[in-house]
């Protein structure tokens, strides 16, 4: 049986990790490398890094950051933001991503989910679903940084992307984002029970107990958060310990002193 997962989400705008409250970006947290070195030291199970820049102009810079992270990140890395074509996916993977996270383009062109999973495999395709609303009657999927209503209901949309070959769903309650009141458990559970692929819950963690609830009450396979990790020392380690103590089946911390030279030393003998 695979373990439940703890996944910090890094939101990057113009090369800086930022904090988000209801999808409005507030504080600049700083350098992505510092954060990832920190997460690596303590047992996070994956990392999701999203380019939330207002346009594609920062894409190259973002992929440079991804490439830098992949030199330091020894857990699976999911790369998202401005993934609009198979070429975008290929670039994200070549830059060191293991999976990609797709949102707006899937809403606009559902067949893109099919194309992407057929070309790169389901294990590589994570569909990000942003939801506004506070009850099953009012839930609606939004795209374009939660600005555009799609008319889709999250459970129906989740079933459709599963059918089209998505490997996982990264589910965000926009109303809970940055609220510190916990995940929207009704939303998480509704989607998790509608599909058989794993659901990653995101948005609203203000206390480690919220992550436990995401798994026990929300039935999520993985729990994610962003803001809370930036302001607590040894935060991912504490989160992990809390989850394990609460009886969640997770991987325990193992400390490994990484030999991390400033400049990577290797040779490549390519035949050109």
């Amino acid at each position, binding site marked *: *049986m*695979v*373990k439940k*997962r703890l996944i910090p989400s890094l939101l990057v705008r113009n090369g800086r990790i930022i904090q988000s409250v209801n999808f409005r970006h507030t504080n600049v947290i700083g350098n992505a490398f510092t954060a990832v070195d920190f997460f*690596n030291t303590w*047992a996070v*199970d994956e990392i999701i890094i999203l380019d939330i820049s207002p346009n594609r102009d920062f894409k190259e810079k973002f992929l440079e950051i991804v490439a830098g992270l*992949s*030199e*330091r990140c*020894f*857990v*699976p890395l999911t790369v998202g933001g401005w993934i609009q074509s198979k070429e975008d996916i290929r670039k994200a993977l*070549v830059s*060191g991503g*293991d999976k990609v996270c797709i949102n707006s383009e899937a809403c606009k062109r559902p067949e893109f989910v099919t194309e992407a999973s057929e070309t790169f*495999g*389901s*294990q590589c395709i994570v569909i990000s679903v942003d939801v506004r609303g506070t009850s099953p009657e009012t839930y609606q999927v939004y795209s374009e940084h939660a600005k555009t209503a799609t008319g889709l209901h999250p459970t129906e949309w989740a079933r459709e992307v599963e059918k089209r070959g998505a*490997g996982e769903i990264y589910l965000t309650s926009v109303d809970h984002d940055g609220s510190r009141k916990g995940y929207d458990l009704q939303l998480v559970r509704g989607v998790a029970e509608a599909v*058989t*692929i*794993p659901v990653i819950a995101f948005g609203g963690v203000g206390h480690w107990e919220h992550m436990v609830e995401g798994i026990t009450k929300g039935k999520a396979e993985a729990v994610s958060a962003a803001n809370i990790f930036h302001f607590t020392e040894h935060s991912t380690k504490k989160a992990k310990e809390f989850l394990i103590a609460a009886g969640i089946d997770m*991987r*325990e911390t*193992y*400390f*490994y002193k*990484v*030999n*991390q*030279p400033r400049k*990577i*030393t*290797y*040779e*490549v*003998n*390519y*035949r050109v």
Partner: protein
Amino acid sequence: MIALVDYGMGNIRSVRNALVAAGAEVLVTATPEGLKEAGGIIVPGVGAFSDGMANLHRTGFIGALQEQVLAAKKPYLGICLGMQFLAEKSLEGGTWQGLNFLKGTVERLAPVDKEKFKIPHMGWNKVELTRPCPLFEGVGENPVFYFVHSYHFAAHRDDVTGICRHGQPVVAAVWKENLFGVQFHPEKSQGLGLKVLENFCRLAEGGHG
């Protein structure tokens, strides 16, 4: 020095970075000549078995691996698809010849409860070590590693060193003399994965076998 075989498939960059972090000196090689100077050889891999073998043939690595690994007994570590290449054959999308360095066949996972245990088997899973193996020194009794695969190498019982459970026993690691294979991804398994790579590098430096 560790030669990392680049035959056009797989996450070479991730494996290379993890090896560097584990303290190795790495040569990424796309040509068989690169294996000559190496103390140990790593074949990573993500993708279909038939494409992988075809690429190894095309790039001339098959003969070089027979020479350096079978004859000269250099330590070999196969990761995921690189482990499956060791088999006699694979049943992934047909029947395909493997390197035939170890007995056994690569078969599709067939968990008893298909609703509960999805294919691909993806995520962190506990490995039960079935006998002492130098690759797993210092990782504890039941290490947890990261897996992504739909097929596994049903190897001969004597060659298996670790299994995990996914609605069925899944072969997680094999070892015979200088041949090592892991179904999981040490390059994505954080501290314990780096420890496995470090152990392999130590074996390679020690001129094992």
